[in-house]
């Protein structure tokens, strides 16, 4: 019976071996267990023993060649036996294991009990949403299992509309966008964050009106005209310089009383409202306030205000007198801490001493942030303002 000589597997790591030397010639007799050839692997050189006694009938793989483990490299036949013509190939029953039914670690997430407010989002997505002030419930998750991941937050544009109110014929449905949207956000933020208190005080404006007339006579030659409003701005700025508590902003836990008095002036537009800022109003001559205010209002109406003309306000003045409003409760322009509302000037009977006099009177409505300003503080400021309006010369005492 012919016996195959194979490239032997010599240990755990061997996959192929090189035949260094056949130690027997073809035709030479071999004993079982006798060294037949020398094989080298990546690790060792070793002799391979004859697997059977007989004659080395054929060398299939010559010296110097490298072959895989288990490949037939030679044939030993029994003494006198003929070399079989055809070497039957190995007929090994290849029984492949069944297709893997095996489960890898099942990454099933624990299912929280159904709760509507539970939103699946990655920690990073949550952090991003927090930073951008976005509401995760508005964002659709595209991660595994519908999880909101960072890219979902990054790619998210806030929807233009919330749930639409029912609209019927004749209604006009308009999306809040642009300036309107900003106003909406700022006003609701201010009103929900800041506990508002409004103090009303009625002031006699006859002295200030007289002063305005005198000033305008002086300035007529220069072509400058001062409005009553300009004077109000001037005295308000002077009063604020004296009451820093109200010339302030508040952010989070921090109140900053500003050194500079930057007066915002609310300007109504057809489609909204802007508040240009008169910087350092307490240090500006009245004529400059007048010309600057005029310019800012014109720019505001033309939509040409620059960003820095809208920033840095420390206090805002809003005047609804021209609409016949006597008094109102203005909403503070955040992050400022107070706002002064100005009403219509009306000639009304006023008791003066024991007599009744007709005087031009006007309401001042001061709204303040009660978190950082107490009622008395605000009242003292308002009192100063009233005194300055009724007796403008007192401005020299400040």
């Amino acid at each position, binding site marked *: 019976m012919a016996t195959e000589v194979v490239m032997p597997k010599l240990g*755990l*790591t061997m996959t192929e071996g090189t035949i260094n030397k056949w130690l027997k010639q073809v035709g030479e007799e071999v004993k079982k267990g006798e060294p037949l050839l020398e094989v080298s692997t*990546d*690790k060792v050189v070793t002799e391979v023993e004859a697997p059977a006694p007989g004659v080395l009938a054929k060398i299939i793989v010559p010296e110097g060649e490298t072959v895989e483990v288990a490949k037939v490299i030679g044939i030993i036949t029994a003494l006198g036996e003929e070399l079989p013509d055809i070497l039957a190939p190995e007929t090994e029953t290849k029984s492949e*294991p069944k297709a*893997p039914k*095996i489960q*890898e*670690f099942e*990454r099933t*997430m624990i299912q929280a009990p159904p709760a509507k407010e539970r939103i699946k989002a*990655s*920690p*990073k*997505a*949550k*952090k991003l949403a927090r930073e951008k002030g976005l509401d995760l419930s508005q964002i659709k998750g595209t*991660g*595994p299992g519908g*999880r909101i*991941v*960072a*890219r979902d937050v990054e790619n998210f544009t806030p929807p233009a509309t919330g749930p639409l109110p029912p609209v019927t014929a004749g209604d006009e449905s308009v999306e809040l966008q642009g300036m309107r949207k900003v106003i909406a956000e700022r006003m609701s933020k201010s009103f929900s964050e800041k506990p508002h208190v409004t103090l009303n005080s009625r002031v006699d404006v006859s002295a200030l009106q007289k002063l305005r007339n005198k000033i305008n006579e002086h300035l007529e030659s220069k072509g400058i005209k001062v409005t009553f409003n300009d004077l109000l701005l001037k005295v308000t700025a002077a009063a604020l310089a004296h009451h820093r508590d109200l010339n302030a902003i508040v952010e989070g836990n921090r109140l900053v009383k500003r050194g500079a008095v930057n007066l915002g002036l609310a300007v109504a537009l057809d489609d909204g409202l802007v508040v240009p800022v008169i910087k350092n109003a307490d240090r500006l001559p009245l004529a400059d306030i007048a010309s600057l205010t005029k310019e800012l209002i014109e720019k505001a109406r033309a939509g040409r205000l620059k960003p820095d003309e809208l920033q840095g306000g420390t206090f805002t003045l809003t005047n609804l007198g021209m609409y016949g409003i006597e008094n109102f409760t203005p909403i503070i322009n955040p992050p400022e801490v107070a706002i002064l509302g100005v009403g219509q000037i009306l000639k009304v009977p006023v008791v003066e001493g024991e007599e009744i006099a007709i005087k031009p009177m006007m309401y001042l409505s001061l709204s303040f942030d009660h978190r950082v300003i107490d009622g008395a503080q605000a009242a003292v400021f308002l009192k100063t303002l009233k005194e300055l309006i009724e007796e403008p010369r007192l401005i020299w005492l400040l």
Partner: protein
Amino acid sequence: MAQMKLVEALNSALREEMERDERVFVLGEDVGLYGGIFGVTQGLYKQFGPERVIDTPISEAAIAGAAVGAAVTGMRPVAEIMFIDFITIAMDQLVNQAAKMCYMFGGNVSVPMVIRVPAGTGRSAAAQHSQSLEAWLMHIPGLKVVCPSTPYDAKGLLKSAIRDDNPVVFIENKITYNLSGEVPDEDYTIPIGKADIKREGQDVTLLATGNMVHYSLKAADELQQEGISCEVIDPRTLRPIDYETIINSVVKTSRLAIVQEACRTAGPGCEFAATVQERAFDYLDAPIIQIAGMDVPIPFNPKLEKTVVPSVEQIVREVKALF
């Protein structure tokens, strides 16, 4: 630069350290005449003689204990435990003695020893010769645990381990022994406790040691075809862990997949996952996953053996599922 196999890199590290410092010696089962069953100590017996390359009895507790005793008395032993599985027999000496002595003795005693342990699967060596027990060792304050994946790292880290004044367990992944790579001709060391970025990427960090580094790199190639850019980090040291490198990577990629041959429960990945979520929670855009060995002993049959440890294909599939 010379091209050499990892086993040769280890061998040259041992040889050079023994030439450099006569306090360094090697002991273990079949490390002398035979040259180590994986050939790591080949030729050392001839060069340094039986006194510095000691064939020990098959007595793991004694090998570890002898190394401890020699280390605290001025020598720098490098002991070989034939398979990491047998470190269980040496555990008292390693855990209660070597790891504690410096601390217990008020910092007055150093234990400059290395225990080399071949580990891992891939050779049908079955349940008692194929484990990945690094988590056992990572758990012990006082030990250092090193686990290189390339010939370059292996040589530089083994030199550092030998020069270190503390007990270092040096884990060699047996399937990587024949892996070739470039190794500088001149003397160099790699600091213990420093991870290495084996491949830079943007979308996900793959954290792996030993042979799993190579699987992860292959998986990264395939994932790149699908538009997923993987960063592959090899911590190289498992105690102390270089969290700075790992956290920086996760902050960048927002995703972490730990690939390990060791079985899942209380394996090394649990440590990585716990610490990364603690320190980089807000940067995670997906759950940290462990692509780990299954919680079974290692079976003998080669196909079953392959089934219970991660494959390249499994890494690709599980990483894709993170996106």
